[in-house]
């Protein structure tokens, strides 16, 4: 089951020529600089753009090929536009109902009250969209799209107007969505932390073309892609919950290279989780050190080095088979004589448990 996309179109000087295939579950991040065609791609997928040629297959269903092209309202998808557009003549409640009512009862998988509560828009229900704040509008638009119980969710920078606390509430729900409802999500975002947290796959775009598409772990650590080269370089570690340390409020998660201590999360033992390790949070030491506040220290092997050209060195480490990136200064790399194959210790200052 996969999502196959191929769209070509031309808008004056801008040419979109995007083709990729990603699994039809989980979150696929669409990542790329401003103006590279992310919104245009989503609009094409939603059937809102006239295209030169297009092919779109979601799982077993072809939505668009030479022979047939579903009209936008025939595609069971939810779309949160980059500029939230609430219907100005309908109250918030009726905005939400607009899509909800049009979804056949048999297809409904999301309850009205659940979406309202989750997005914290209960108090707004009977207001007009006129006086809503930017963040409130965004949350209503997300709820409205979710309530159509779509088979594919398109999110175009949906959380930009939200503060960290609101985001922290919504992100886990979006994660659950694809896990529990098996609702694949295409997610445009510039926020690396959101992407790392949510995305299983990633489509990397530039100037209307797809640079690469695939599992996020692989793309994040590939030195030939801009991600691993940036100061925001990061790696994703697949692990599973091993134990809870109630005294100190920690949770232990195991991965092939060892055990992480992270802030306690109420997850069942054995539950697979994902950890995000930022390259700049990883420091290297030649000896295992004691008397440090850093809990997560692993023996590692240097797999490869990449000089960024601005005095940074990105080191790809192999920790029990899992690739992890470390970002250090060239001065340190020279001082520690880092070279491929070398054995050393990786101190990981902080790590985010994602799911």
């Amino acid at each position, binding site marked *: 089951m996969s999502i196959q996309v191929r769209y070509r179109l031309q808008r004056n000087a801008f040419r979109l020529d995007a083709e990729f295939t990603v699994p039809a579950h989980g979150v696929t991040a669409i990542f790329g600089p401003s103006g590279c065609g992310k919104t245009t791609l989503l609009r094409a997928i*939603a*059937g*809102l753009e006239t295209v030169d040629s297009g092919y779109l297959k979601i799982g077993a269903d072809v939505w668009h090929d030479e022979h047939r092209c579903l*009209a*936008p*309202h025939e*595609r*069971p*998808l*939810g*779309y949160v*536009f980059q*500029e939230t*557009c*609430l*219907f*100005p*003549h309908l109250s918030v409640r009726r905005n939400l109902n*607009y*899509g909800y009512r*049009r*979804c056949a009862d048999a297809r409904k998988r999301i309850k009205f009250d659940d979406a309202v509560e989750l997005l914290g828009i209960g108090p707004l229900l009977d207001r*007009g*969209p*006129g006086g809503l704040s930017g963040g409130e509008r965004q949350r209503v638009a997300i709820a*409205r*799209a979710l309530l*159509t119980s779509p088979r594919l969710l398109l999110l175009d920078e949906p959380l930009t107007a939200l503060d960290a606390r609101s985001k922290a509430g919504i992100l886990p729900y979006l994660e659950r969505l694809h896990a529990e409802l098996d609702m694949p999500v295409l997610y445009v975002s510039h926020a690396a932390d959101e992407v790392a947290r949510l995305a299983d796959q990633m489509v990397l775009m530039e100037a209307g073309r797809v640079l690469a598409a695939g599992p996020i772990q692989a793309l994040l650590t590939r030195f030939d892609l801009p991600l691993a080269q940036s100061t925001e370089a990061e790696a994703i570690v697949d692990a599973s919950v091993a134990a809870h340390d109630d005294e100190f409020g920690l949770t232990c998660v195991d991965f092939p290279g060892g055990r992480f201590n992270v802030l306690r999360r109420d997850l069942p033992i054995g539950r697979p989780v994902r950890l995000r390790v930022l390259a700049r949070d990883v420091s290297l030491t030649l000896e295992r050190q004691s008397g440090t506040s850093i809990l997560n220290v692993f023996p590692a092997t240097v797999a490869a080095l990449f000089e960024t050209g601005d005095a940074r060195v990105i080191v790809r480490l192999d920790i029990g088979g899992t690739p992890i990136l470390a970002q250090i200064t060239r001065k340190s790399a020279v001082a520690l004589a880092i070279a491929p194959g070398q054995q050393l210790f990786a101190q990981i200052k902080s790590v985010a448990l994602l799911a």
Partner: protein
Amino acid sequence: MLSEADFIALWTTLKLATVATLILLCIGTPLAWWLAQTRSRLKAPCEAIIALPLVLPPTVLGFYLLIALGPAGPVGGLMQRLGGEPLAFTFTGLVIGSVFYSLPFVVQPLQTAFASIGTRSLEVAATLGASPFDRFFTIAVPLARPGFLTATVLGFAHTIGEFGVVLMIGGNIPGATRVLSIAIYDHVEAVDYASAHWLAGGLLILSFSLLLGVYSLNRHIAVIRP
């Protein structure tokens, strides 16, 4: 002051204005919608043709309609061959004439209103599963409400006040095609100014109340625009 004939004329007028306005909205709405959406080359010619009846003096327009609808004319002849009655000098003929003459007053405001909605709201509605028909009624029409108000008021009022066309193709037949505007005109012609004043004054007060009601109501449910 006012005779029974005047009340019959009032009744005919209200019936005519209501029926004509309803037909105008039924014809004008899809027409305006098409004009607001299309990129066809036919757009500008169609717009010009719709506005065209305006430039002819109503009596002259009525004259040509008379020719067309009369037994010798293309429409009337066709009607007769189909076994129907000729349309001139009937209420139906009046309605056709009024619709023809008031069409631009209905189409143009609607078209402006539809065009100013933009496409975004309609796109959003489409992604929420609304078919073109559905989103036309649930999004385009409510958002074009001010345009509908203008169109209805202009269409209705203009049909009430219309005179030349109606006089010409109606033939001023009491109970069938004698409308209020002709009745007032008759009173003026008969130097029966008192009746004319009464009738005109009554019409004005009635219309004013009606319009005031419509506009006040409109203010209360005014669309909040972003």
